[in-house]
């Protein structure tokens, strides 16, 4: 008999002995006894389930904690390895920049010397040159000029990459600056029979920029546009103002940039394959320098391009 029922019978009927309890009640008491027993069984089952379940959750927690520690250690180790690798890369990069700077400086002086010497030869009145000699010297001058340009770009890239230059900001008429640059390019455009059109909103506010740096940037962009255009093609330059921003765009209808190479176009020393095929001479520094110049001015540069169709670069300045 269940102990609770036994206690209750003793209390209320004076006895728990079934023989002393009226027969007609015994079936009922049996049912009550069963109910008490089942209730105990149910309670025991629930408690057991709770205990086992809690144990399983604790075990799961412990395992998750342990796995978490392993993952965290892996993350720490890998972060450490990455940091070290990054430091090594930065050191390498710095050494490379220093090397470039030293080499460029070392080269510039003799190159400048060669330039002046060649110039004097061409202009000499006392010992005039034959046509053939002049042609050869002009060819040397061109090559020398290219080398000077490359050395200057390397020096620019180094200075910009290491942040070792300051902007000399001046209120600048950007329309006039761009017009000048287009004018400077006239020899190149004539050579390749390229037509440059320039349209602009009126008025365009003056911009606080370093005119030499911005000139360099637009020279680079226009040079690329002309270089990669088909002969007798057009290059459209446009300047407009919208929402306190001045946007200068340069569009050519030339070789375009392959889609899979577009993500790298502003990387130093990178040149797209079709650009290398079209124009083997080039060091891949130009666009990275242009980007750095614009960002130093608080501006941005982006582009759209479709291979074999057209490319447009957008330089955006905040007014």
């Amino acid at each position: 008999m269940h102990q609770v029922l036994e206690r209750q019978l003793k209390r209320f009927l004076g006895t728990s002995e079934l023989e002393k309890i009226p027969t007609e009640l015994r079936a009922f008491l049996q049912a009550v006894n069963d109910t008490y027993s089942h209730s105990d069984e149910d309670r025991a089952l629930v408690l057991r389930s709770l205990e086992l379940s809690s144990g399983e959750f604790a075990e799961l927690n412990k395992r998750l904690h342990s796995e978490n520690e392993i993952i965290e250690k892996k993350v720490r180790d890998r972060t450490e390895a990455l940091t070290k690798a990054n430091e090594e890369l930065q050191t390498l990069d710095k050494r490379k920049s220093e090397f470039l700077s030293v080499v460029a400086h070392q080269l510039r002086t003799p190159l400048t010397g060669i330039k002046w010497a060649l110039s004097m030869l061409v202009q000499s009145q006392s010992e005039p040159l034959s046509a053939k000699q002049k042609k050869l010297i002009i060819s040397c001058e061109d090559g020398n000029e290219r080398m000077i340009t490359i050395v200057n770009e390397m020096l620019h890239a180094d200075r910009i990459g290491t942040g070792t230059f300051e902007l000399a900001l001046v209120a600048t008429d950007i329309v006039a600056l761009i017009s000048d640059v287009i004018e400077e390019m006239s020899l190149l455009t004539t050579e390749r029979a390229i037509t440059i059109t320039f349209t602009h909103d009126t008025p365009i506010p003056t911009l606080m920029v370093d005119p030499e740096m911005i000139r360099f940037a637009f020279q680079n962009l226009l040079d690329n546009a002309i270089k990669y255009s088909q002969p007798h093609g057009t290059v459209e330059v446009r300047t407009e103002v919208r929402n306190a921003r001045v946007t200068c765009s340069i569009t050519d209808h030339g070789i375009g940039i392959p889609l899979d190479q577009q993500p790298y176009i502003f990387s130093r020393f990178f040149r797209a394959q079709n650009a290398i095929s079209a124009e083997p001479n080039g060091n891949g520094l130009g666009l990275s320098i242009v980007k750095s110049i614009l960002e130093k001015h608080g501006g941005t540069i982006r582009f759209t391009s479709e291979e074999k169709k057209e490319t447009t670069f957008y330089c955006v300045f905040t007014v």
Partner: protein
Amino acid sequence: MKIEQKFWTKVDGWVDVPKGKLSETPQWVLVFGGRKLLEEGERFKEVKAMYPKSRILSCSTAGEILDTRVRNDSIALSAVFFEKTTLTFSEVTVEKGEDSYEAGRKLANDLKKDGLTHVMVFSDGLRVNGTKLVRGFNDVLPSDVSVTGGLVGDGADFKKTLVGLDESGKEGKIVAVGFYGHALKIGYGSLGGWDPFGIERTITKSKDNVLYELDGQPALKLYKEYLGEQANGLPGTGLLFPLRLRLKNVGKEVEVVRTILGISEADQSMTFAGDMPEGTPAMLMKANFERLIDGASGAGSMSIESLGSGKAELAILISCVGRIMVLKERVEEEIEAVRAKIGNEAAIVGFYSYGELCPVAPTEKQCELHNQTMTITTFREES
């Protein structure tokens, strides 16, 4: 529709339920009884003598339901006369679970005729694979024919289950009843009342409806741990912890409940009433009293609401044996909860089962295998 009911017990013999007495010959007599009683055959002979011209469906049970009483080792009998509805009966025997799909198809094809409105299935509860059986029906029957029914039982013994058509009953048998005609209105509802608990595990080894391992450990070992002293009562006590599975079904995830039918100490396996696919997430479930009663009540509401306007005349209740394990001596409270919803006019008959068949919602027609539910089919004939 007219119904008369009676029951048989060892103490009182045959007792008529006062309400209703047929003067017509009923087309269908439902006989739900203890397995040993049906095996003896004597009671069936008596029923046959009472209804010589009727089709008699016999099912062994895990508990007999008549009105709001639940009995064991008794016979619950309902004889039904349909005024405007015709019935067709079909039967098939399966030797093993793998045959269940074809069995379902065969029965469905036998019943698929013009005017078919509803099918009720009464199936062996131990040999048949309920999942495959259901698929067989669903693949053949038109989408506007509803299917309900159950897998019959054998108390908490799980030794053999019997189904018979015009006989006392045999193992492996499935009987399907087709109802034809537009006068018959059918409603149905199925609800459980069990809740998952604890950590989610994964079925790591199984074959069809036999489960070997959860999370790489023998499933039987897990059940014995949870049951403690009650592990001696396996497989019956295993009903206290059905499994909830999250099954992938045509790209969607559905939750189903699976109940234990048997165990094997030799290979530490557990047989369930439906498929247990490897890789399926599974959680143990538990019930409490109030949730089960609410589930029964909810199923009653669903079965009446889906019947449309008008009251039910007959309600066939198929409730899972697992519910008795929890409700115990208070099991009749769930029948009373159903009665409270379907009204006093309906004749209630039914049994405790090893599986229930019903659409997942009253708006659906195709049936699914359920476990641990109260499943109700209600009938009304319009005049």
